[in-house]
């Protein structure tokens, strides 16, 4: 049994991580534990780089909080401006193994609806803007804006899960990424 620390207490993120690890390492059992970890960036990160920094910081902080584990994983959602004047979601996934090798992937992006863009530009976080616009409460713990906009063809969980699978590629293929053999979930 390996232990995975998720740098979040969101059930959606914990489930996404569990499914991602399960898909990439079907012969292994993983225990997932969520912890509140700091991102060290604003609550609503702006731009790909700041969002990536938030994911990396959360992984590092989770490791300090729970050093006795095998993997630490963080999902960080931010927004980025695009040339067409729209705001897009940007989500980074960072995973660190015991040796300190860390790897990242970026999830699929989508363009925010115009009115949500306006609310966010007015200072609201994306989660609050989603709730206000769609008239729901705490949509972050459900399928999120992406679920509503795609009629659940994609959900927050499926987007995070695919990001986790992509971020696990080097751990599944350690020889290709020059990482130490013991990092593979052997």
């Amino acid at each position, binding site marked *: 049994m390996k232990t995975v620390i998720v740098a979040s207490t969101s059930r959606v993120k914990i489930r996404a991580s569990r499914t991602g690890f399960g898909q990439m390492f079907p012969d292994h059992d993983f225990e997932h534990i969520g912890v509140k970890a700091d991102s060290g960036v604003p609550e609503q990160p702006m731009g790909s780089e700041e969002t990536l920094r938030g994911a990396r910081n959360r992984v590092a902080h989770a490791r300090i909080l729970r050093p006795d584990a095998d993997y630490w994983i963080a999902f960080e959602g931010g927004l980025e401006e695009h040339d067409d004047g729209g705001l897009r979601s940007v989500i980074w996934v960072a995973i660190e193994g015991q040796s300190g090798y860390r790897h990242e992937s970026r999830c699929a992006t*989508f363009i925010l*609806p115009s009115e949500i863009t306006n609310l966010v530009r007015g200072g609201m976080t994306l989660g609050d803007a989603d709730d206000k616009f769609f008239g729901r409460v705490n949509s972050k713990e459900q399928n999120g804006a992406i679920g509503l906009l795609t009629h659940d063809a994609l959900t927050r969980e499926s*987007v995070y899960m695919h990001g986790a*699978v992509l971020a696990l*590629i080097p751990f599944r293929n350690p020889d290709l990424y020059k990482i130490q053999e013991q990092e593979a979930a052997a």
Partner: protein
Amino acid sequence: MKTIVVASTNPAKIEGFRLAFTRMFPNETFNFQSIKAASDVPDQPVGRDETLRGAQNRIAHARALAPTADYWVTNESGVEDVGADLFIVNWVAVTDGITFSNTLTASFQLPPRVADYVRSGMEVTQGFEAVFGPAAAKDGIAGIGHLSAGNIPRAELIAMGAITALIPLKNPDLYITTQE
């Protein structure tokens, strides 16, 4: 029956778009046509901007070649630096002639040996072939099916990106459309 022109003859890309349209518009039927359309950028685009330009050019050419369709779609794959690493940057572009939408698919870091080949001038597919042999390179954008142990086939990666690109077309009232 609506006609979708895919500006690519790559079977994985066509399948990715078929999956996306079926999931986003389950009550409609679609006829898919595939055509070769030039990107007017190098075979291996570098950076987000050049890769996006390639996708937009393919769409424009596809519309000129097949002007009577309902949708024109394409996928253009490039590479970009993220710190010291080389990542895939993969754009999906779609239009119904009124709304133009493009999004990045999920992306991942290329294996360093493949990245070395690409930096020395090879295309990603060739780099993958050099490292894995022809079979592995075929199954994915940069062998994604191979690297993810079959969990994310190339068509699925494109389908997810295509679904997000179709959001403004599926929800036109929520988006101020970009006219060209």
